[in-house]
């Protein structure tokens, strides 16, 4: 096994801030939305925490965006433009997760410096990072001060529309976050990918490296 440096420091810092922030946003969001049913924090405190954490996540998103935009690493987010290839890759990976993994089959995806996401991961992260998170940040900013952004809110169809989009994406994140955390345990050991997100190094078999070098 060889160590492969795939997660640069800014990305690791971004990732953990984003992870903790998103979890806290979900928790404070649930508190705000279900005050009376859940009373862990006072409503006002939950709103203030939610606003501040949201602001950090918005800022953090731009850290991620800039660190990728001005780097060759942006290639890991390049979408697969061949739909057949994309479909095949996703189906192959889905079959592995839903069947092969139980039979001890090898993971069809091989990690390299330029391909650190499997096709399903890549598609999911593109949707999350380039669509859902920006929309969530945008709607969050609008909801943070509806008076200030009333024209934009009206243009989008009103506060209900903006809020429903925000809550809809929140629901998707509620589904996605535990899923993401679980998929992180599907390495050779349960903590392999978690350790990699702290150290930056993933372990890859020698033959895969050779394959990459060749």
């Amino acid at each position: 096994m060889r160590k492969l440096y795939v997660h640069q420091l800014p990305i690791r810092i971004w990732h953990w801030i984003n992870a903790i922030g998103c979890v806290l946003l979900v928790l404070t969001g649930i508190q705000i939305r279900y005050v009376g049913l859940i009373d862990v924090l006072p409503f006002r405190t939950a709103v203030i925490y939610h606003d501040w954490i949201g602001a950090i996540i918005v800022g953090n998103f731009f850290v991620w965006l800039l660190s990728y935009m001005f780097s060759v690493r942006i290639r890991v987010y390049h979408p697969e433009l061949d739909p057949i290839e994309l479909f095949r890759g996703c189906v192959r990976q889905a079959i592995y997760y839903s069947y092969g993994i139980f039979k001890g089959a090898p993971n069809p995806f091989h990690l390299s410096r330029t391909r650190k996401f499997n096709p399903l991961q890549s598609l999911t992260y593109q949707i999350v990072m380039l669509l859902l998170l920006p929309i969530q940040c945008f709607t969050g900013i609008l909801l943070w001060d509806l008076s200030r952004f009333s024209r934009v809110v009206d243009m989008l169809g009103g506060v209900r529309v903006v809020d429903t989009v925000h809550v809809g994406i929140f629901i998707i994140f509620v589904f996605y976050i535990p899923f993401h955390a679980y998929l992180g345990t599907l390495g050779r050991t349960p903590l392999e990918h978690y350790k990699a997100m702290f150290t930056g190094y993933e372990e890859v078999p020698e033959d895969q490296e050779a394959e990459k070098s060749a």
Partner: protein
Amino acid sequence: MAGQSTAGQHRHSSFTSTIATVVLALAFCAGFAASAPPPGDQQCLACHQSEALVKPLADGDSLSLHISGGEFAKSVHSAFGCKSCHRDIDPARHPASASIASKRDFSIERAKVCSGCHSEQYHQWERGVHAALVRAGNPVAPLCTSCHSPHAVMRGAAQAMDTVPCQTCHGAIFTAYASSIHGVLRAGGVTQAPLCFACHGAHDVKVASAGEGLRDACLSCHSEAIARHQTWLPNTTLHFQMISCPVCHAPKAQRTVDLVLYDSTSQADASMPMGVPEFENRSGANASGLGSAALFELLRKLNGSGASSKTSIRGHLDVRTGVEAHQLVPASMAISDCNTCHKTGADAFQSVTVSVAGPGGIPIRYDVNKNVLNSAFSIESISGFYAIGATRITLLDVLLILALLGGFGIPALHLIVRWLSKQPAKRDDNEQRQG
């Protein structure tokens, strides 16, 4: 020098005598007004002091023609004499035999006389809600003489708590006011505490709850209120836009979500000036109030092809009645707990109305089914109103539960299947080792 001195003394003497004359004249007038009317007026009062003097009206009622000489003498109008207002009366042919249809007609006709001197106040009245009600045919809407008894107009009477004329028609509201912090302070001699006219106007009487009138009325005295709320209330501006002051400052009042039509193109409150007959028809047809699907359909109809602008429904939180709007308490007793309104099933959202403009902008409220606030239809139909927590869409709650079940359940299931699928392999390994 001597000449100058003489001239100066003369000017001084002339000025002094002028002042003295004016003072004497004023004293005379005041004394005269307080004691006895001028001869012309005495001639009128000779008959009109009689309480038995009545004029039969065409509608069968009778009009009292009695004038209290004592009250008239104290009235501010006594200085001008009867003739000033009753120029149309020819003493040679008085009493005339002209017929008067009713007391109401007589009051409407006499109001024009008031406008002769009080034109500014009359024009203000014409712009107000009272005149609008008169024009709409309301038989009790106040005219000049309803509030100001013309033969006993006392200076400052409309500004004193015990004589303010509003209480004649708005007795219940005035009682609520009198017990409120404003009324208590006013009765205690604090003249800065508002009386009716301070918030509603004296002659151009406005419905305080219409549009932003109430907020503006409160802020005209409590100019520091926004800054004070900003120290603790998140989204203060939004709260001030969406919630009328009594919602928190009359804590015992029953609250209601009041929906209004909003013109998104002109950013104006559309239902106030025009009213929407469709609402009235539908509300009338359904006693339990408009449902979410009905509101949705109505909006679609209003925004159908040919609509010149986009109409949406906005809402704000208000107290249900005018009486409750006046039950104001000291600021320290006002609601400041966010949970009161934002919690699930909050009282504030158990009542929903839709307002359409009545005569003079008086909002006429029709009941709406409270479930409209939690319906998925509300995304389109009540796109302009949302209170976090309390008016959330039920369908999204269901989706959240499914997301929680899926997000945690599917990985858990996957983990269990993984664990089970590894058991035979482990057994084989162990057997091989043992073998």
